Structure formats: structure tokens, C-alpha cells
């Protein structure tokens, strides 16, 4: 029993109760989860994109949930992983931004500082073996320059021109890399994002076809509406099924 708790994890009864002879265990398995988030840094800003579903295991449990959070007028988060942990993260970031505001000196946190703040907290939680089960994309625009960074549940933190979380680490990131140019514009990147989201919807069983894009530019954060993807299911490989004539990518 006590041995099992370590690997099974437990949100159920007695989740935080120490079992005799075993270490205290907390969230070790995510429950309601969001899938991929995509991000691309452009010449004139940053674009992030994700779908709007939260799965309960393999069940498409919640649809049309936003997985983005506006952290500040020039910084937005896109979050994959456990949805309740995402909500906890929102509370945490909002509390920090409020603390900055009440200092009443006109100063606030830059996108880079918000990313660092999240990285410290995520690493702190993983050190308590109580991680927030998320991958967070931090997109910002500060002093004429876009920033795009990632933090995961281990506190791993890095920045790049193109970033992806979840399933898109495998299927989306190569597409983003191919599409990225240093001089790519936000408008162009939005088209790329839609294409990649479509591929993800075709291939990732934890994704839905209603997506959301957000941009951060010199004008600030702009969160787009939830948009239904224009999908095409009559591709030969889809119709003939897997392995037919070895044309399928599966």
C-alpha cells in the first residue's frame, strides 16, 4: 500500500496524509489536462496559440476553455498540463502582479522577470515533490523586443525563437522551425500557427478543433477569439486508413 502510493500518486482520500514508512506524496498524476501550446517570436512581436480543450484522461471532458492567461499588459502565458494547477498558477501570478501594483511606484515585472519568477516557483515545487503539473509558455514584448520562454513542471527554463509544449514538442516544433524566419511578421506567423494547430488536431487525440491565438506586440497583448479550425478529412491517407499503400504517416 505504502509503496504503491509513491508511483500511483493520489489526489483521492488521504492524498496528503503521510503513510507509515513512506514519504508524503502529493500530486503525482495530472487529472484534467490541456495539450499543446505553440509559440513563435516574430520581428514585430510574439504569437502563441493553443486549442481550447481540457481532457479527463482520454475523455474530451471540457471544451472551449481558455488555456491562456494575461499576466501583464505586455505578457501572456499559454499553459498545458493539469488545468487546476494552471488555475493555481493564475492565482499566483495575479497575486504577484498585485503585490507589484500596490508598491505604487509605477514599476512592474518585465516578461523576463515573470518567466524567472515562474521558473523559481516551479523548481521550488518540484523540489518539494509537489510540482505544478504544467508546461508554461511565457510570451512578452518589452522595450521593443519580443521574448518567448518556457518553464516546465521540473522548473526547466529556456528561451527560443520557436517553442512548443506537450504533443507539439514532437509534431509541432519541427513545423514551427521550418516556418520561422528572423523577419517573419506576426500576421504571417498566425497563418503558420493555424496550419500547425490543424496538424495537431488531426494527429493528437487530446486536441479539439476550436483554437485560440494571442499576440504580444508593441501595442500590448491581444487575445483572439476562439476560432473553429477549417478541417479537411478527405485526404487520401485519412480515407483509406492507416498503412494503406504505406502512404499514411502513421
Amino acid at each position, binding site marked *: 500500500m505504502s509503496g504503491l502510493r509513491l508511483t500511483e500518486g493520489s489526489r483521492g482520500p488521504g492524498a496528503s496524509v503521510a503513510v507509515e514508512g513512506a514519504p508524503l506524496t502529493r500530486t503525482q498524476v495530472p487529472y484534467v489536462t490541456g495539450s499543446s501550446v505553440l509559440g513563435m517570436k516574430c520581428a514585430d512581436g510574439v504569437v502563441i496559440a493553443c486549442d481550447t480543450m481540457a481532457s479527463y484522461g482520454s475523455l474530451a471532458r471540457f471544451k472551449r476553455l481558455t488555456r491562456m492567461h494575461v499576466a501583464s499588459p505586455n505578457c501572456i502565458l499559454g499553459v498545458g498540463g493539469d488545468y487546476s494547477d494552471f488555475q493555481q498558477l493564475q492565482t499566483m501570478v495575479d497575486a504577484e502582479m498585485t503585490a507589484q501594483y500596490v*508598491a505604487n511606484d509605477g514599476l512592474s515585472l518585465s516578461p523576463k*522577470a515573470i518567466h524567472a519568477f515562474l521558473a523559481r516557483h516551479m523548481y521550488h515545487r518540484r523540489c518539494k515533490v509537489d510540482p505544478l503539473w504544467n508546461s508554461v509558455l511565457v510570451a512578452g514584448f518589452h522595450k521593443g523586443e519580443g521574448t518567448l520562454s518556457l518553464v516546465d513542471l521540473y522548473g526547466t527554463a529556456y528561451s527560443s525563437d520557436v517553442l512548443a509544449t506537450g504533443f507539439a514538442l514532437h509534431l509541432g516544433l519541427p513545423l514551427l522551425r521550418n516556418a520561422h524566419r528572423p523577419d517573419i511578421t506576426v500576421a504571417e506567423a498566425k497563418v503558420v500557427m493555424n496550419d500547425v494547430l490543424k496538424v495537431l488536431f488531426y494527429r493528437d487525440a487530446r486536441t479539439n478543433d476550436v483554437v485560440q491565438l494571442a499576440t504580444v506586440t508593441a501595442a500590448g497583448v491581444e487575445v483572439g477569439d476562439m476560432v473553429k479550425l477549417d478541417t479537411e478529412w478527405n485526404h487520401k491517407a485519412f480515407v483509406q486508413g492507416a498503412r494503406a499503400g504505406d502512404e499514411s504517416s502513421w
Partner: protein
Amino acid sequence: MFRNQYDTDITTYSPQGRLHQVEYAMEAVKQGSASVGVRSKTHVVLATLKRFASELSGDQKKLFAIDDHVVIAISGLTADARVLSRYMRTETQHHKFMYEEPMPVGRLVLQVADKCQISTQRASKRPFGVGLLVAGVDENGPHLYQTCPSGNYFEYLAMAIGARSQSAKTYLERTYTTLADADVEALVQAAVTALRETVASSKDTELSAKNTAIAIVGSDGAPVRILENAAVQPYIDALDSTPSAADDDDDDEDEADAPAATPAVAPDAPAAAPEGGSPAGGDAPAEEPPANGAADMQT
């Protein structure tokens, strides 16, 4: 010895609504040797006068680099200043760790002021007997702050604290408008010249490379620079061509606009008038601390 019956307890107001212990702590700042700070649009410079406990001793430290972008000058009890400087170093390091950005100077000063305030409102505590000039740069450019044992803090374009700082303040009040666009060299020279005003009427003290320390911090991204000994000498030498305001007048408040072109330091000049009204009223403390053990606590 006691001024009245309400000054033994920090948290008891006098019938006039004053906290005497806090005011005495403010006096401790004035016993310390002078510190001067000046600010331009790009840099902040601190200049300090170091005291020597004896002929054989080293000097008491007056400047503490807090981080790459913040440095403080202290007047008052050195030991209390060390506690505050360690606190400030911890806070700036913590901020750097947490946000990967240098701490805004105003935030740091606010925290120090809050720390000072706590010891003015708790019966079991003693107010810090030290005042700080905090020089630093952040996103909004250079800043110069003063903190007091009372928990007050102020931002300045130019400021002086410590013994006979009124002379330096008078000098700065006349010249600060020229400092905004001054280059670093001119700013350092202005700080040293202001500092010289505090010893201009002293018989036994004269600014030298040995007893002057300078700190420079600028918004060019370079870390705090502290100049001592030989590095200070050029600014001391340059003083000789700048006449002292105190040479022809022993009253700081009543000086001619154009100082007379007399030798820079007049060792035989009459002693400066005591500083304007002590906030505690009554007998103002002696300008020069007595040559005993207690005086060694202050720089």
C-alpha cells in the same frame, strides 16, 4: 543627562507628541563623519570622509557596495550600518535570484526604511543609529536616496549627511542646477568639493587621498566603482584651484555668491557655527564627537 522624563522609552510619546529616542537616533547620524551624494542624468557619486580611530589604525569603512548597481554611504554607528548593508545585500541578491533582474533602487530603500520604522514602534527595540545615502541605477535611471533612523526616506538630486553636513548642503544648494548635465569627472569633483566644505573650518582635518573615499555608479551598465587612496588624489589636487566657501565666512547660511579666491583649505579658519536647530530642541550635541571610546563607534 536626561532631557526629560519621556525619553527613556521608545514607544512613549512626550506631551508634545515627540519620540525622543528616535530623535536621539537622528542625532547619532549627525555625529558620524560626513557623506555627500550628487546625481546627474546618468550617474550618481558618493563622497565620504573617513575617520581614523587612532594614528595607528585603519579607517572606518564609509562605503558599502550592495550590488553591481547600488552602493551606500553611511553616517552614524558603523555597526548598525553593517547590519543594514548586509540586509540590503541579501535583499538585492534575493531579487536577482527571483526575477533575474537587478532590484529597483526605490524598492530597496523602501524595505530598509520599513525595517528602520519597525524599531521606532516596538518597545523592545532600539532605532538604528545610522543614516544612509543610497546611490543606485535602475530602469528609470540614476537615483540618490537618504534614509533616516526614523524610517523616513527621501529622494534627492544632491544631499549630505553627517557632521557639519550643513556646509556641504549649502554648497550643493548653490550648485546642484549645474549637475544634471555634468559628466562623471565633474560630478565627482562636485561631490569632493561639497565634502571639503564640511572640513573647511576644521583646524585638524583636511581632505586628503587617505581620508576620502568615492563611489561612482552609472546607468552605462558598469558595476559600482569605489575610489580610494591614489585614485582620489587627482580630485584632491583639483580642489586647490577651487576656493572654499568657508574661507571668508564662518556662517554657512550667509555666504557670498562668488567665493573669494583664497587658498583652498584654511587650517586656521574659525570653527563653523553649530548646525541649525536640533529637532530635539535644548542643547544641541557637540559638533565634534569627544575623543573617547564612544566616538570610535561612529563614522
